[in-house]
Structures are given as C-alpha cells and as structure tokens.
C-alpha cells in the first residue's frame, strides 16, 4: 500500500555526480522517521526532494497524500501542506517574530490579520517564546530562532514536517530546547521526517530510523532494532563511529 509520502525510484544528479541512487520509501501518516548517515550520504537532498526544493529526474516519482510533487500549479499546494525547518533557520530578518509566522497564512491561506496574529501568539506560547513576538530575529539566540522557525512552519497547519538537521547550527546548550519542541510535536500525530545527527533523539522519538550512505537507503528499522541489532555492516560501522565518542 502506498504511504502518505511515497517515494519511488528517486534519482538525483548534480552534473555527473549521482547523489541519490534510486530511493524507494513509503512513510505512513503520523509516522516519525529519522534519517541518519554520514555527511554527503544524500539525506538532506532526500528530504529537500519531498517538497521539491531540489529537482529530480523524470523517471522518479514522489507523492504526498496522493498528489504528485511536480513543478507547476500543484507545487505550491503541496508545499503549503509540507512544512520545512532548515539548518540555518532562514527566518525573514526584516520581519518581526510575529510577522514571520503570520506571513504565509495571510498570503497563502488568506487568513485575516487578526486571526493570523492570534494564531502566531498561540504558536509562540507553544514553543515557549510568548514574550518575544515583537523582536526581530537578529535579537534572538540560535535556539530561539529555530523555535520561531518551527512555529512559522506550524502556522500553515501542515500535514508533514521536514526537518533538515535542525540542531546542527546550534551551540550545544541550545540543542535541548529545540529537541524538546520537536519531541512534543511528535506526539501530535503530524508526519515528521527528520534528518539529524542526534542519535539520542532518534532513539527516543522515531518510529523508524533510516540509515543512508552513498545516496542509498542501507537500512530501515524501528529504533530499538536499529540501535541494538543493526543488520548491515555499514550501519554498524557508522553507529560505532558516532556512538563510541
């Protein structure tokens, strides 16, 4: 049965470099999937294909809730249902925190200003930043900025949330506050695909962990099995390298 997110034979080239080598992946509605692997393994490229921030070849197909992710009129619709959180936050620096969150609901959904503002304040409270609404992003710490970015993605009430190494650009003491917000989100039933180096988070929160290397999915298993009894040698070597330090 096709998943809520269905990825078939995903091929991606950067010039002659074959970045993704035929990925097949089905993700169920409400599932929390963590994607791990060494840098350059294609895990960021994979999730950037899901909302087509990266183009992919025509032999490949990605569907989200049955809608093909193709360029054109449908793409904005898919993107409105698929929220994304970036490694470098990418908040809009000329807008206040509240305005950052209000922008997409106002412009894409046509939400009224008052409703969007009320929703923004609610979301800010949810990520623990109720008092920061009037500030500009440059006045916030990295951890706070990333929580605003999560609130901004949530404002579109997406069915899917993609996280592209959301804690990799943070100072160590701020990683926890962002992971806490993500942990809460995982309880809400939203479908999450998280590219991360945080093995502890993957182990506790994921329904399934996927290991990628060299542009391929090497192993896909529930976290208990994945961390305690990996089947593939490459997975074992990777876990050995990241966990024994």
């Amino acid at each position, binding site marked *: 049965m096709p998943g809520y997110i269905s990825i078939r034979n995903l091929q991606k080239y950067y010039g002659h470099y074959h970045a993704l080598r035929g990925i097949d992946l089905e993700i169920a509605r409400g599932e929390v999937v963590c994607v791990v692997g060494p840098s350059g393994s294609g895990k960021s490229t994979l999730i950037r294909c899901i909302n087509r*921030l990266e183009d992919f070849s025509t032999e490949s197909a990605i569907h989200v809730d049955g809608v093909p992710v193709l360029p054109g009129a449908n793409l904005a619709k898919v993107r409105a249902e698929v929220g994304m959180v970036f490694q470098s936050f*990418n*908040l809009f620096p000329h807008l206040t925190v509240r305005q950052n969150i209000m922008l997409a609901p106002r412009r894409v959904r046509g939400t009224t200003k008052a409703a969007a503002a009320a929703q923004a304040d609610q979301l800010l409270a949810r990520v623990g930043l109720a008092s920061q609404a009037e500030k500009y992003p440059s006045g916030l710490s990295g951890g706070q900025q990333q929580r605003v970015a999560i609130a901004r993605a949530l404002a579109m009430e997406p069915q899917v949330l993609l996280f592209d190494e959301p804690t990799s650009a943070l100072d160590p003491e701020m990683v926890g506050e962002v992971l806490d917000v993500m942990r809460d989100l995982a309880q809400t039933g939203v479908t999450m695909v998280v590219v991360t180096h945080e093995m502890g988070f993957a182990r506790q929160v994921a329904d399934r962990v996927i290991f990628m290397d060299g542009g391929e999915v090497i192993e896909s298993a529930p976290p208990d099995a994945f961390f305690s009894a990996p089947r593939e040698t490459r997975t074992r070597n990777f876990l050995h390298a990241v966990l024994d330090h």
Partner: protein
Amino acid sequence: MDLFETFFNLEVLARSFPMLLKGLWLTLELGAASILAGLVLGLGLCMMRLYSVRPVQILTRIYIDVFRSIPLLVLLIIVYYALPFVGVRLSPFASAMTALTMVSGAYTAEIFRSGIEAIPKGQFEAAAALGLGHRQTMVDVILPQSIRMVIPPLTNNSINVVKDTALASVVAMPDLLKQATQAQALAANPSPLIGAAAIYLAFLLPLVLLVSRLERRLNRGKA
C-alpha cells in the same frame, strides 16, 4: 577686472537669480521624473533579466549593457535630432527625460540585481517551502530586504541623473545650466555659472553625505 568681479560679481548674480531659479525648477522636475521612471524601468528590466525566458533575458542584458556604455550626450542628440527623421518628434523635456530614463533604467536594473543576488538562497527556499508564489516571495520577502541594501547605490545613481540633466541644455531645454549660460551671455560675465554651481552643490552635496552615512550604517549592521 579682477577675479572677484569676474566670477563672483554679486550684482550680476542678483540680477540673474530669478532666471537661475526658473532653471533650477526645471532641472528638479526633469531629475525627479527621470529618476522615478528609471526606477520603474530598472525594476522591470531586472525582473526580466533574472526571471524571464532565456531569449528575453539575453535581450534585456544587451539593452542594459548598451545603455550603460553609450554616452548620454550621444543618446540625447539621437533622441532629439535623429528621431524626427523617423517621425518621432519629442519636446526638449520629453527627449531629455527619455534619454535620462533609458540610461538610468539600465544602471538601476544592475543595482537591483546586485541587491537581489545578495539575498541568501535560504530566504528563497524558506519562502518556497511555505507555499509562497514567486510574486509573493519577491514582494514580501526578497525586495524589502534588497531595497535597504540598494538605497546607497540608488541614491548615487540619482545624484548622477540630476547632474546629467545639465546635458539637456544642448537640446535647448532651459534648465539650470542653460539659464546660467544665457545669463552669462546677457551680462557678459560668468558669475551666473558660479551661481548655478553653488545651487547644484546645495542640492547634491547633502545627498552625497547622506549616501556615506547610509553606507556606514549598513556596514555596521553587517559587522
């Protein structure tokens, strides 16, 4: 006749002052109209250069490069003296404004382009990921950030446009410089020219200083 009486003759200056003021008014009108039209043209050219189909991009690029290379005086003479041969007869003001706008638009397009290309890719991606369309991304996310960055170079360009309005005197437009040279001829004394120079300075020097201040402030924001 000493230097002071020749170039700084107060009596001649006072007599020519009303003429100079009339010229100044025309200079400011021409400058403002050309700057505004140049901004609109430049933004349009910039969007075509960056986001249209390939052939239009190439044509836009040729336009921009040609009009940045051609001396304004040559363009002005073509517009005013050559176009009538193909049936296009423009008034001195319209000729000068056309020439100034065509050149200013080319420069402005490049200024806008540098402002847009300076915005990190992540801003475009964040907007796209939220479901914003291209137009919304430009209007709500990219341009507000670009415009702050390009205010200093745009102001510089505006100063150049106002200075270049002086070239309109060759197509018999009674702008500030033309009035000054006429007053000079009437009085057989070059003091009105000095008066005109003082007026140009009074308007443009504050703008030059403003650019420096804005640039310092923007650089401070970066550090």
